[in-house]
């Protein structure tokens, strides 16, 4: 993937596993199917003649709009996953994400308070994990989802070691 405008020049991004698309698809399916089913209830009730309000057009429009939005998000998922990237520099870790709303974050190793590795059920079945970095700031919402387990473990060890070497107070 080409480097976006807000990325620092000369950074070689590492990508997360393409298998992470599956995780996102499962999440998408669970979220949207429930949502759509719920929003379609009025339509069903109106069609069955149990409800007089809302009018039929409204009962159709709301779930239809939701469906279109959901499908659009579905189409975006592979690109979003490809947009997630990270780069280990000498003193800090760069993390980027997003296509429309892009974010590039730098987390200095010395600032890391602890590193989490979380694995959900879908991720586990695919051999993936999510790495979370915590600093003293709650604003540091640094997550790296969809890392292969081995890479996640390596990164965790690496980050902890580097963090220890450069540990600074607050």
């Amino acid at each position, binding site marked *: 993937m080409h480097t976006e405008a807000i990325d620092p020049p000369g950074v070689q991004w590492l990508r997360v596993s393409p298998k992470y698309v599956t995780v996102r698809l499962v999440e998408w399916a669970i979220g949207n199917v429930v949502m759509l089913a719920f929003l379609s209830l009025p339509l069903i009730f109106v069609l069955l003649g149990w409800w007089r309000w809302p009018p039929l057009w409204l009962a159709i429009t709301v779930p239809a709009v939701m469906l279109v939005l959901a499908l659009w998000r579905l189409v975006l998922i592979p690109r979003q996953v490809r947009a997630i990237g990270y780069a280990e520099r000498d003193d800090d870790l760069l993390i980027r994400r997003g296509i429309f709303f892009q974010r590039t*974050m730098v987390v*200095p190793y*010395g600032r890391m308070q602890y590193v989490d590795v979380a694995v959900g059920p879908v991720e586990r079945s695919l051999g993936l994990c999510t790495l979370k970095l915590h600093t003293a700031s709650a604003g540091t919402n640094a997550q790296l989802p969809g890392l292969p387990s081995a890479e996640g473990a390596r990164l965790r060890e690496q980050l902890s070691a580097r963090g220890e070497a450069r540990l600074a107070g607050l």
Partner: protein
Amino acid sequence: MSLESSPTESLPGKPEPAVDGPWNRVHPASPFVRGWVALAAVGFFFGRDAFERMLQGRDFLDPNLSGRVPWLLAGGAAVLLLTVGGFILSWYFTRYQVAAGYVRVNTGFLFKQQRQARLDRVQAIDIVQPLLARIFGLAELKFEVADAGESAVRLAYLPLDQAKQLRATILARAAGAVSGPETAEEIPEAPEHVVLSVPPSRLIGSLLLSEQTIGILAGAAVVVVVSVLTQNQTLFLALIPGVLGIGAAYWNSFNKGYNFTAAISPDGIRLRYGLLDTQAQTLPPGRIQALMVTQPPLWRIFGWYRMHVNVAGYGVSGSSEGAARTMLLPVGMKSDVLRMMSLVLPDPGVEDPERVFTAGLDGISSVGAESTPGDGFITTPRRARLLAPLGWRRNGFFATRTALLIRSGRWWHTLVMVPHQRTQSMALHQGPWARRFGVADLVLHTTAGPVSPRVFQAGVEQAVELFDQQAARAREARKRQTSEQWLAQVAPQSPEVAATIPAQPAQQQQLADPTQAQTSPQQEDRHDG
């Protein structure tokens, strides 16, 4: 700090054996002072019945009561005994100790809790006196380490002198001035020098001209218009609770901001304020993570500003208590602001700090600013003026050698300052609109608090450059930070404070010559803990 008395004892060359201090208890009256609400509630509960009876002109006591009196008395006595017994037990089992590197507090008799807070992690230390405690001459000591939310150590209540003594001890040990086995009694309080105070008239004026007032006036206008239009006067009755709430809010601000005094001592910045409940905060040097100066539109008439800070451990300013504690200056003139800035950031990292800070506070770049950067602040490029039609000439940033200054807001003037070595992490944000106009936002992450530094709509090239440079600057600043102990790094503001500095034992080798520490600002921020 035992600065003059025993400098030899605390020289780093002679490590003293870590002897822990004795275990102490808080003042015996403290559970009653703390629990007076419970006692008052019990009193209110029983008293109300009798009072209502009297109002209705009936007997003072319920006539049916006579048969049940012994039971009631026994029950009441049991409740009272249990409460008082609980108070005594909780007092007995609350003990604290100042050890070599730690403060330890034990509480609880059924569920015991042992808490240990590292002294080199102390972020701030407060002495709080609620009204009732003040009447009894007691005070609560709050000790913050870097963990948002709960105070690490709360000692309620100690006699005021003892609380001050303990504060001095903790600060002296945290600063590294004292490492030996001195007991609390031997450490005198650090001398301080009052820097500024807020007169009550200015406080009242600032409250009357605050955003709150604008909101109230707007709300009142709406209510009057609606009631005239609908010819419905009962609407005003519905406002009574609102008026009471507003009155309470004003009173709260006045009560908190009254008699605000800032002082500097080798321990750090001392803030004192409060009308009924008084509070004395001590912010050790270099513990301020971020600082914000704001000016609501109406304050511009008198040139007033207010200042807020982020301090790790103070947490979010959701509660009124938190809001008061993160206030560095409730209202002040520009000279006050500059003075506070110089306390927070002894080395501004530029040649003419006053001009730069003034540009940050009130500056606005001229229309053709892109070619001629007048005040040094890099503002939103002209191509993005549609994104921020009002603020584009105001939004800007300026990086000194020691801190990043971010200004924003055309009407609500805001200046945010983040010292480089306090930057936790950073992120560049760019949405679809911003990409269209070739701008990006830079967010600096600091600890929880009222200040959230964000450079709005900087040109992409400048933003990326700043992002890269800032990462490097923060890295450099962190490398220079060698110790958590902040000894002898505050630029002394007065002769009497300055006199104590050479007497302090040299903790770091770089500081072997005390005059050098005062003349070279670079040297000072080297151990900005």
